[in-house]
């Protein structure tokens, strides 16, 4: 290998030569940039990285990374990805998907991916709208949402993606926001380092069809009031002046003031992302369902579970150890045979 090839990779090495074709101002740009930046940091190589996607704006993602990439069909990226990972467990497999792709048409594959736990990273760009088909409500659009296909307001309850993932026993669940790039990088890094399926919901602004959906969580003046930054081992504190927290009142979470003298840091829930028990992670995912609570961001849960492809390889190895590497002629001649002379 030449000295040139040994040069450490940079963000530039992960940029493809294709023009990026998202709308100017789309939140996808920020996510793409962070992912390209993180690839060399994580020590990933171009040749061993595969980005897989379905259909939708977010699913154009693979074309813009100078790695291997497969832009597949609507909702099915998890099925392609598990085939790729099972075929070659040495590959770093990533899925870029959206709220419609992963949770509507691909809902079935999504839950089965979480349950099987292959070592695959899932970045779900949630903009709560159908962008590429030009503005219909999505499975994460809020009740009452007025869109082209719901002129009188959506009458459907939205999915909470983190809660759905957790319900399917995802081993890693996290949330980040497109414009908070530093935090986004840290979440991507944690996901990449997790062994197992890592699910990251990214709030992503659709500037054309759902602009401002996440403004409370992105603007300097409001984000600290509205986001709960999760840190392992730390009490759940939020607010512009870190003046509020979340404590348990019996089994029910409650927002309390840290300045009225009634509660102190010791009264708050301490985040434990490694808890084998799902109770805390469950509680965290549901905070965003209630307007009285801040939206949690960061790593909700990160536990260790056997990976699909490891168990597959182990079964194959033990079959070989037990029966020896298959002899095809013996297999053909299995059972009762007879000679015709």
């Amino acid at each position, binding site marked *: 290998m030449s000295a040139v090839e040994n040069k450490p990779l940079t963000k530039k090495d992960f940029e493809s030569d*294709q023009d990026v074709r998202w709308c100017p101002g789309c939140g996808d740009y920020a996510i793409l940039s962070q992912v390209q930046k993180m690839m060399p940091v994580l020590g990933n190589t171009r040749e061993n990285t595969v980005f897989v996607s379905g259909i939708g704006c977010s699913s154009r993602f693979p074309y813009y990374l100078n790695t291997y990439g497969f832009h597949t069909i609507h909702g099915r990226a998890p099925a392609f*990805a598990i085939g790729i990972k099972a075929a070659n467990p040495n590959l770093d497999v990533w899925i870029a998907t959206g709220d419609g792709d992963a949770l509507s048409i691909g809902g079935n594959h999504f839950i089965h991916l979480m349950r099987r736990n292959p070592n695959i990273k899932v970045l779900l760009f949630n903009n709560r709208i159908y962008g590429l088909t030009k503005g219909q409500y999505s499975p994460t659009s809020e009740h009452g949402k007025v869109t082209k296909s719901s002129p009188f307001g959506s009458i459907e309850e939205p999915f909470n993606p983190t809660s759905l993932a957790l319900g399917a026993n995802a081993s890693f669940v996290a949330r980040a926001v497109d414009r908070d790039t530093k935090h986004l990088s840290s979440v991507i890094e944690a996901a990449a380092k997790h062994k197992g399926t890592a699910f990251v919901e990214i709030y992503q602004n659709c500037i054309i069809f759902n602009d401002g959906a996440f403004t409370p969580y992105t603007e300097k003046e409001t984000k600290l009031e509205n986001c709960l930054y999760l840190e392992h081992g730390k009490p759940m504190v939020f607010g512009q002046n870190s003046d509020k927290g979340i404590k348990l009142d019996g089994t029910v979470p409650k927002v309390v003031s840290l300045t009225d003298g009634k509660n102190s840091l010791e009264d708050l829930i301490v985040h434990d992302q490694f808890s084998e028990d799902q109770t805390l992670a469950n509680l965290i995912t549901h905070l965003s369902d209630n307007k009285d609570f801040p939206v949690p961001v960061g790593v909700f849960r990160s536990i260790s579970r056997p990976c699909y492809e490891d168990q597959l390889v182990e079964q194959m190895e033990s079959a070989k150890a037990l029966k020896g590497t298959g002899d095809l002629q013996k297999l*053909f001649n299995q059972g*009762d*045979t007879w000679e015709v002379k």
Partner: protein
Amino acid sequence: MSKNVQTLDEVTVMFAGDSGDGMQLVGTEMANTSAIVGNDIGTFPDFPAEIRAPQGTLAGVSGYQLHFGNYDLHTPGDECDTLVAMNPAALKTNLKKLKSNGILIVDTANFQARDLLLAKYASNPLEDYSLEKYQLFPVNITGLTREALKETGLDTKSIDKCKNFFSLGIIFWLYNRPLNYTINILETKFAKKPQIAKANILALKGGYAYCEATEAFRVSFDVKPAKLTPGTYRSITGNTATALGLVAAAVKSGKEVFLGSYPITPASEILHELSKFKNYGVKTFQAEDEIAAICSAIGASFAGKIGVTTTSGPGLALKTEAVGLAIATELPLVVVDVQRAGPSTGLPTKTEQSDLLFAVYGRNADSPLPVIAASSPSDCFNAVYEAVQIAVKFMTPVICLTDGYLANGSEPWKIPKVEELKPIEINFRTEPEGFFPYQRNPETLARDWAIPGNPGTEHRIGGIERENITGNISYDSDNHQVMTNLRFEKIEKVASFYPKTEIFGKEKGELLVISWGGTYGSIHTAMEKCLKKGLSVSHVHLRYINPLPNDLAGIIKNFRQVLVPELNNGQLIKVIRDKYLVDAKGFNKVKGLPFTSGELEAKFIEMIGG
């Protein structure tokens, strides 16, 4: 008294009973024993979709038909010489298949008023003289089994489960078959339950001894070994042959097979079989649905494995969008469709060959792919092996059609020598210099296959139309025309690698029969009879449905009439008429049953005005 043995050329026997009576099991034992003693065999298991339909009803009848002979057979037999009916429902459902003066063995214990009512018999056929044209042997099989097994200490329910082996014992005596192969199988199968093994063996011997002691049958029969091509043989079903063909392709190509599959009748056995072969480098993945099954297989192909998915018609319907992606991204993939009667759920356990048009045309947009078909149970091995060869040579999905009749039916298979199987060559593109994902081999038009993990050939592919050679997204209208033409021409090129089309019969004449798939056996048998009579009929059985062989046009021109018999409402005939502008006639049947050679022979004779 010494046994009076009469020698026959061929015999067809049917076991029929309730779906819980174990008819498939004893039928298979009779078939395997006949194959081992050297007969050629053809089998036709016919059973309901329900695992246990209500006992004693017509809907719950399960039958196993076996044809064995001393010559090269191609069918499970048109009519039966002997029918074993375990109850009135089995008798009523299958009596029409029994020849006049055929041997009819019934279990009299199950001809009580309630049984007759369930089978909708107004009067007892054993007593009302309606069976006079058959040789009726009423045997209290249930009662005699209980008697034979009374010392085993088993309860009556368990003892009654052995009555199928008592009936097999009768058939073994009648056709002079050795008991030892079945005894060995029972001892192996029930190694952990020796009491059950012993009980079934007692029942088997009991049935045999009953015939010997009672002299119920004055004559017994024997069928001498068939003069088959020398070699080592085993009995094989279509689904097992398909599974072995895929393993063989993996071993011969030096690449892993990845099977993504979702359970569906009648294809599931391929998944079951391949799941056992982990030490042969076969990876199997039971997906969450049919779509995930094919998508995972395409993903594996992208990563450099031989991606395979197995299904039946309703599953293929779900997979079509993904097949389109494999066509667009030009990745190798084998889709095995074990056809069943439809539409929709249809008749899951009954056979039909009605997915041909679907396989050839059933996708959005202009999306050609090769379609090939297996012609007999053991031929499933060759067909699927060839499907892999085409898929990797031309970088395309290939649909391999088998059907329920082939999948479950069995016949002797001359076991191939591994070293004599044609090689499957796969060369990944590893050289980065000058690599483009849609650069093509000029001979085959196949694009280069570069796989993740290889440095320097990183590329992106997908369903959006791509620029020729570079593979970059392209919405250019001229480029779309170029790519559409290339996809079409590539598949047309497959035909230039076919062997010469074989004609059974003369190369010129009055009637050409063109067929495909699982009808081969019955058509070939009908043809043999016609040729013996000197009739001007010839037969071409197609392996390649799309593209059709280049020499077929010339063959068709040499005949005055063309007949296309199919187990559907007319599908291949549409392709033939479209492609060759010939006034072909159809002969069609959609009863969930194969053709009999008799009805085909009659049709051929009618066509030539004989």
